[in-house]
Structures are given as structure tokens and as C-alpha cells.
């Protein structure tokens, strides 16, 4: 009788120990995985100032290579189109009829819609806004549709 009790207790301790070690290991792995995701990014801000509207003449297309961005000042207002090809991330070039990607020959129309090639989706459009100091602000985390225009 005593032997049985001891045995049961030992088995229980063993089970709890195994479970505990397993749970701790799983927790540790989860923590390690989370550890790999950075909380602070030391990269250029995703929301930035590109200058005052006056720096973009009416009817012009300006390429900002550092921001990988085309800024248009059209008849209806300002808008910003990404130069990053949605296929494999090369910089697209603005051409007469739209955009062309040098890497795999994707072609896009004036609005960034795919005309030809392997690109799976249109070029991204980003929200443009005006700061209180009358500067144009682009937010890369806020995508918009091709009907977007900013009236100044």
C-alpha cells in the first residue's frame, strides 16, 4: 500500500515535470521567435515630408529615387505612385505611356495598372497630405486607389 502511494506520487511528479519542461521549452521558442521581430526600425520613416507643393511644377512628374516614389502634379491635384515593381521589387521607369520595369519587362499604364508582363498587381498609390506647415506628406503605410488626388 505504501509502495503504491510512493509510486503514484513519483509518477505524478514525473508527469508534472515533463509537462512543465515541455511548456517552458514551447514558451522559450515562442519568445525567441517574437524576439526576431524588431520593435524599432532604424530605417527611413514610412511617413515623410517631400517638400512644398511649389517645388512640383504644374503638370510635372518628379522621381524621388531615395523614396522610390513618383510624384505627379496633375490637373486634378497631387498624387504619389510607388516606383517599386510589385513583381520583384525593381525600380520602374516612367515612360511615355506609363511605367516600365527593367527587370522582367512588366509594363504599367499611367495609373500604374498592369498592361503586360508578370507583375501580379498594380503599382502602389500612397496617400499624400498637406502638413500644417504647408508641406506635402507621403505615408507609405496608407495605400489609396488611383482616383486619389490632393487639391492644394
Amino acid at each position, binding site marked *: 500500500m505504501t509502495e503504491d502511494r510512493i509510486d503514484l506520487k513519483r509518477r505524478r511528479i514525473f508527469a508534472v515535470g515533463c509537462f512543465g519542461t515541455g511548456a517552458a521549452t514551447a514558451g522559450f521558442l515562442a519568445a525567441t521567435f517574437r524576439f*526576431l*521581430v*524588431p520593435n524599432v*526600425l*532604424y*530605417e*527611413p520613416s*514610412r511617413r515623410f515630408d517631400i517638400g512644398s507643393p511649389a517645388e512640383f511644377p504644374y503638370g510635372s512628374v518628379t522621381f524621388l*529615387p*531615395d523614396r*522610390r516614389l513618383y510624384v505627379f502634379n496633375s490637373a486634378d491635384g497631387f498624387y504619389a505612385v510607388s516606383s517599386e515593381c510589385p*513583381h*520583384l*521589387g*525593381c*525600380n520602374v521607369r516612367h515612360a511615355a505611356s506609363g511605367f*516600365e*520595369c*527593367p*527587370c*522582367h*519587362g512588366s509594363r504599367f499604364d499611367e495609373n500604374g495598372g498592369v498592361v503586360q508582363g*508578370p507583375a*501580379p498587381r498594380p503599382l502602389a498609390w500612397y496617400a499624400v497630405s498637406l502638413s500644417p506647415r504647408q508641406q506635402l506628406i507621403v505615408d*507609405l503605410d496608407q495605400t489609396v486607389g488611383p482616383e486619389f488626388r490632393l487639391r492644394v
Partner: protein
Amino acid sequence: MSQTLGQRTASWLNAVGRSVWRIGWPVTDKDRAAVMISSIFLHIHPARVSRHVLRPSATLALGLISGILFVVLSVTGLALMLYYVPYPPEAYRSMKDLQFVVTFGVVLRNMHRWSAHAMVVVVFLHMCRVFWTGSYKAPREFNWVVGVMLLLLTLALSFTGYLLPWDQLAYWAITVGTNIAAYAPLVGDRLKFLMLGGHVIGPMTLLRFYVLHCVMLPLLMLILVSLHVWRVRKDGLSGAEVHRAPAEPAEEAAGLFPASTKTHGLMALSRRPRASVEARDPNDEVFAWPHLLFRELLVALAVVVVLHVVSLVFMAPLEEMADPTRTPNPAKAPWYFLGLQELVHYSALVGGVVVPTLIVAALVSLPYFDRRRAGIGRWFAPERRIANTIFTVLVIISVGLTIIGTLFRGPNWAWVWPWN
């Protein structure tokens, strides 16, 4: 006291030597066996080995060459680490230093680069050899799976190393490569974020690739290579069993062909291996010392000589410093991914996700579906005509796509003739 001082010194030195090597220079057969068994480094070999697998045509020594290349890469890589700074733009400047300032830096870098390319090729050829000789069949199924993982690790090591020079070639190859990875369904974007340590390739990416390249992946590689080689050792060198005269069970029982002389076998702790390390035809075997060891040293010598010649003649590429604002035209992934990039050019999902997943799944599950025993251990056995034909066609397609992507694709990924 009749010994001279010289004799006593010699005997003392001999004792010191014996304390290190235990067995001296082997003269007798018993010593030739003992020298292999008593050394942790030589114990990777069996004491005796079938003379059939020693012929160069049996394995073409491709696995051995992969191992030698891994050693060369580890040694040259460790040396390069002493000068390399994994932070842009110093990373690029340290490459320039290695190229122009550090004595022999350029040779070491060239050797590291060319060995890495060679390793991708040799590991791939090794896989082809194993398939074409049907050597992935039982009991080696799992070792084939380990081999597939080693192939993937080789590619991962090469890919992570590709970014480190921080030149245009590196930057845009990794841009294309990580964007291919981003096509994975559901997790693609998160995977890319995790790989880059951010949204764009930057200092964080370089540090991640550096740590993966220099520590994590080589460690993983070392563990898996140990497993791979251990199992080769346990299952016997492939191809040996084909030439073995079938041992009659009666004879075996009578002790003519002793089933096992190993302690664990005698103690009935382990079953006899199916592709037996024991129960072989003794007349077909030679001692690994010197026959196998000599051939291995010869192959190692040849590999090292070839690598030196190549590294002295051909320069590893180093372009201008990475410039995220300027995409070279065309922007190409590392050459071993250009077959995929060629497919990605038609469809990103098919080329970037579906095809690679199918290939890996097919390779891993292959030995568990193809279980026929006919034609094992022989090159292009007629019994395996269908399997060999399918595999060969796939090899030709992937090599063909890689060649097209590498040589026949120019600006805008348009078709060009390489001789123009």
C-alpha cells in the same frame, strides 16, 4: 643501462608519440584495422571497404568533394571574418580592403567565392549520382531526406553570403530573392519582413544575413553533415552490396561468413543492418588504410589545387556599392535561382511558390514512394528506366532554365544571344 642516450631519447619520444596516436604507423593488417577504429577522426571510415566502391566511377567522389569544399569554405570564411565588418557602408569598404590592401586577401576571397559556387554544383551533382545509381532506396531513405535538407542548406548558405559584399550585385540579387520568398501564401510578407529585419534591405538585413551565414547555418550544416556521414557509415557505402555474393543462410549459420563481430551485434542489442556493414565477402575488400585514405587525400589535393588555380586566375566579382535608388538592368538573383527567376518571369506564384514547393516535396517523399528494389547500386539500371527518365528530364529542364536565365536574358529580361 646498456642503452645509449640516443636510444633512450628515441624510446621516450616513441612513448610520447604513442600517447597521442596509440597505434603507430600501421604495418600489419591488425594495425591497419586498429588505426581506423582507434581514432575519432579516422573512425568515420570502416576498417575495410569493398574495392568496388573505391573505383572512381562508383560515386565520382562527389559527396567527398562536397565535404572538402565545406572545410575549405569554413577555413577561408573564418579568415575573411577577421577583416569583414557587417555594417553598411563599411561592409563594402572592407571588401575593397580585402581586394586591394590585405595581403592574399583577394586570393582568400576568390577561393571562398568560387568554392561556394562549386559546392552548389557538386552537391547537386551528388544528388543526381545518388538518384541515377538508385542509392536512396531502403535502408537509405532517410539519409536521402537529410541530403535534400543539406542541398537546401547549401543554397541558403550561398544566398546569405551573397549579400555580404554589399555591392550592387549583392543588393539587387537579394532584393529579387527575398521578393520571390514574399510570394509564399499567407506568411510571405511576414517572412520577408523577418528576413530583412524591416521593410527594406538595410543594416539590420546585413547583420541578420551575416549571423545566419557565419554561425547558424554552418552549425546546422555541421550537425546534418555528421548525421549524413554517420548513416553512410552505418548503412555501408552505397553500391557495395550489389557486388556481394549472396551469403547462404546455412553457411552463415555454420560460421563460414560470420554474421557480425561487433560487440553490440554479439550482445543482440542491434539488428544486423540490412545493407550490411558486416557479412560481406572478405575477398572483395581492402583495408581502408591505405587504399581509401590515399584516394581521399588525392581527391582533396586535386580539389585544393584546382581551387587555387581558379582563384589565382579568375576574380570574384565586386561591383559598385549598393545603391537602392538605381536598379541595374537586368537585376538578377544568384545564378542558382535564375531557373526560378525565369519561371517567375512568367508567373510569380508558379515560379516562386508552387514549383519550388513541389520540387522539395517530391524530393523528400521520393524514397518513400519509389520502393522497388530492382536496379539498386548501378548506374542507369534498365530496371529503373522510367524513374531515371523522369528525373533526367527534370534535371535537364532545371539546368536548361538556369542556363537561359543566366546567359540568354538581357536588359528588360528580353532574350539575348550570349555571343552578341
